[in-house]
């Protein structure tokens, strides 16, 4: 899965190859707004476009470069995939949308799955043939994963599932779900009653209902299990180990170096994009960008974004992370998601009268990009532990403050 560390020149050569390939093969603007994250895939049109793009990237040998070659990878060092990922970002390609497969399920299966599971699932993840979704959150226990109530009862060679999950990304398109369900409701610690499954989505008794987002678009489903039967072989990590497996899964989010397949899980939206988009606007008859108050606020946002990037770099320098070792990694989500919320919200404010228009209006700035981006951003300040919960975690684990 890796080998010895590649030399800088090997990496540079590879990067150049990727760059050249991308210049030639990255898709042209399809003429409709593409999702910035995999949670925003809201139409068949978008889905097919992204599926084709991921398949093409993988076929060229640039996805899961460090995954085993017998399952669709190339068995190279993860640093090569990292070069691909940087180049995808630099060239602003569309996202590699099968994120739950590439970044969660795939690395988990490679780490602790059986050979049979690897053979069954990995290649389809890379090729985008099999879309994966995630079944962690439940309607009544949004931020409280450990309290999941969906039941899985062993019955012969099957488990019988009852309950419901919510915020299932691409639930209506997915072939498989990573599912956290309760196998032992009487476990003394609630965490010990959970198990982790690689569940097929086409099983009888599984139904999805699309959720319309605040933007007016779709992108998530609610998923209902009514006496749904899935084979016991879907269990991964052993019965009762679901919590531990789920926590392990979350570690892969950190990218190729942590075991994920790589790719571009989301398009980063920068304040420079905002500045470009509003540069032509005017305020009080003068160019907006000449207004001193606007300039001051933009500088604050630029600084905040730059600090995020610098913190990333700092994480790699041990000498600068001795005082509060967990500070930068644990606070990344909070800092990034709240920064984006403020920046995108300001993006609307800056538009003047045009900020009153919406996606679909031909006069809207950048097609209503910022309107949609602001609304969509709540997925990141709410999902995966709200900002309020993130702040608890940081306060407690970095500063050692007592639990709330």
């Amino acid at each position: 899965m890796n080998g010895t560390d590649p030399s800088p020149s090997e990496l540079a050569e590879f990067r150049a190859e990727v760059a050249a390939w991308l210049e030639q093969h990255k898709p042209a603007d399809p003429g409709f707004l593409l999702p910035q994250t995999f949670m925003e895939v809201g139409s068949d049109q978008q889905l097919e476009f992204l599926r084709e793009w991921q398949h093409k990237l993988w076929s060229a040998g640039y996805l899961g470069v460090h995954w085993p070659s017998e399952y669709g990878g190339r068995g190279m060092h993860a640093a090569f995939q990292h070069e691909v990922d940087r180049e995808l970002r630099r060239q602003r390609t569309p996202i590699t949308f099968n994120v739950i497969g590439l970044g969660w399920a795939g690395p988990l299966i490679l780490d602790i799955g059986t050979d049979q599971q690897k053979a069954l699932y990995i290649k389809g993840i890379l090729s985008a043939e099999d879309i994966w979704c995630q079944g962690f959150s439940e309607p009544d226990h949004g931020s409280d994963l450990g309290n999941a109530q969906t039941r899985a009862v062993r019955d012969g060679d099957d488990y019988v599932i009852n309950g419901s999950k919510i915020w299932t990304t691409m639930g209506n398109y997915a072939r498989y779900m990573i599912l956290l369900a309760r196998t032992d409701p009487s476990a003394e610690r609630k965490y010990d009653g959970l198990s982790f499954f690689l569940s097929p989505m086409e099983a009888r008794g599984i139904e999805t209902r699309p959720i319309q987002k605040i933007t007016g678009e779709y992108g998530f489903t609610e998923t209902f299990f009514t006496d749904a039967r899935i084979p016991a072989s879907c269990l991964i990590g052993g019965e009762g180990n679901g919590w531990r497996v789920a926590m392990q899964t979350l570690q892969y989010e950190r990218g190729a170096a942590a075991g994920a397949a790589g790719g571009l899980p989301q398009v980063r939206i920068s304040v420079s994009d905002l500045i470009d988009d509003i540069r032509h606007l005017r305020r009080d008859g003068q160019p907006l960008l000449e207004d001193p108050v606007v300039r001051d606020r933009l500088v604050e946002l630029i600084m905040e974004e730059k600090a995020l990037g610098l913190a990333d770099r700092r994480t790699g320098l041990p000498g600068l992370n001795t005082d509060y070792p967990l500070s930068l990694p644990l606070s990344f989500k909070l800092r990034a998601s709240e920064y984006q919320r403020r920046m995108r919200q300001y993006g609307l404010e800056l538009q003047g009268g045009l900020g009153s228009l919406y996606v679909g209006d031909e006069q809207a700035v950048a097609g209503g990009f910022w309107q949609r981006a602001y609304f969509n951003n709540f997925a990141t300040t709410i999902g995966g532990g709200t900002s309020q919960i993130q702040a608890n975690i940081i306060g407690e684990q970095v500063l050692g403050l007592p639990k709330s």
Partner: protein
Amino acid sequence: MPMNNMQMVFGDEQGMLLDSARAFCRDRSTMPAVRALLPSAQGFDPQVWQQMAALGWLGVAVAEDFGGSGLGISSAVPLVECMGKHLLTTPFIDTTLVARVLQQAAGSDLSQRYLPDIVGGQIASLALLESEDWGDPAIGVTATPAKSGLQLSGAKTQVAYAEVAELFLVSVMYQGVARLLVVPTAAVPSAAVSRQTCIDETRRCARVDFSGVSVGMENLLPGDADSTLREVMLLGALLYAAEAAGSAAACMDLTAEYLKTRHQFGRPIGSYQALKHPMVEVLVAMENARSFVYHAASLVNEATPDRDAESACRMAKAQASEALKFAGDRAVQFHGGMGFTYECDAQLYIRRAQWSQQVFGDAYHHRKRLASLLLDS
């Protein structure tokens, strides 16, 4: 600096209007009714509009001579605040502003021709904005003398309810001077009106291209429009501020209710200070907006807003814009996953907040002008 004027009155008539508006809005603008109108073409219920006319609301800023009640524009404030609270969205604000302008600045011929119909329910709309820039001092639409009167050229944007209005009040340049012109919609070909997509789905507006439209000279309001435009910009800011203050209160109530009932980690989430304290900030921001709104309403009934009244209107809009923007943002966040759905009513407020902050100038637009009023004396 004009900080010492703390006038605040709330008369019996305003109180009675508020009471009747409360009952009316609660009854006619239930959340299902609001939701049902979102995908409609018109965006409001014509029956409700006619009932509002029947209640005399369209005549509050109109003198009795022209069929109104002569209560004055300040009496529209509690009505609009209440409509904002119930998301009852109609052409009321724009129609009331046009009526006020005709009442104050038109000759009696024009007033007589249009005001009684407006009081009776005719929809009128302001056509002022030409670009994204609410502070643009220039007017691009021109009126040129032609055989049959005046020939127009140029377009306006975000004309409220343009598709159903029967009357536009348009700012134009005429012989190098800013003027206001009444344009009956009959004179405007329907192809010249192109619907825009509002982020606040309770509203409707359109771009109107007046190029080639002809109207009679008699439709030109007398005199330079500068002071009238200043006045209508201030009153528009005040009325939209009142509406936003009402919406902010409703948004806060919605969120507070959710925080009382939703449990996480075994506690109602409203017991967490991380949610409770920002709600208190929303409350304070909303209450401050209300205070400015009613202060401004206490000062605007005279013909031309003086320095104190101008300051009050601008503070009202600056504060209400920010209050609703903050309330809407927090409403979505604090509803958690639910807040992210179209089904949750939080979306109605966060969308309205984006509209409200811009219309008649955003918070910074007004603060910039307040700086001149307050710091350069």
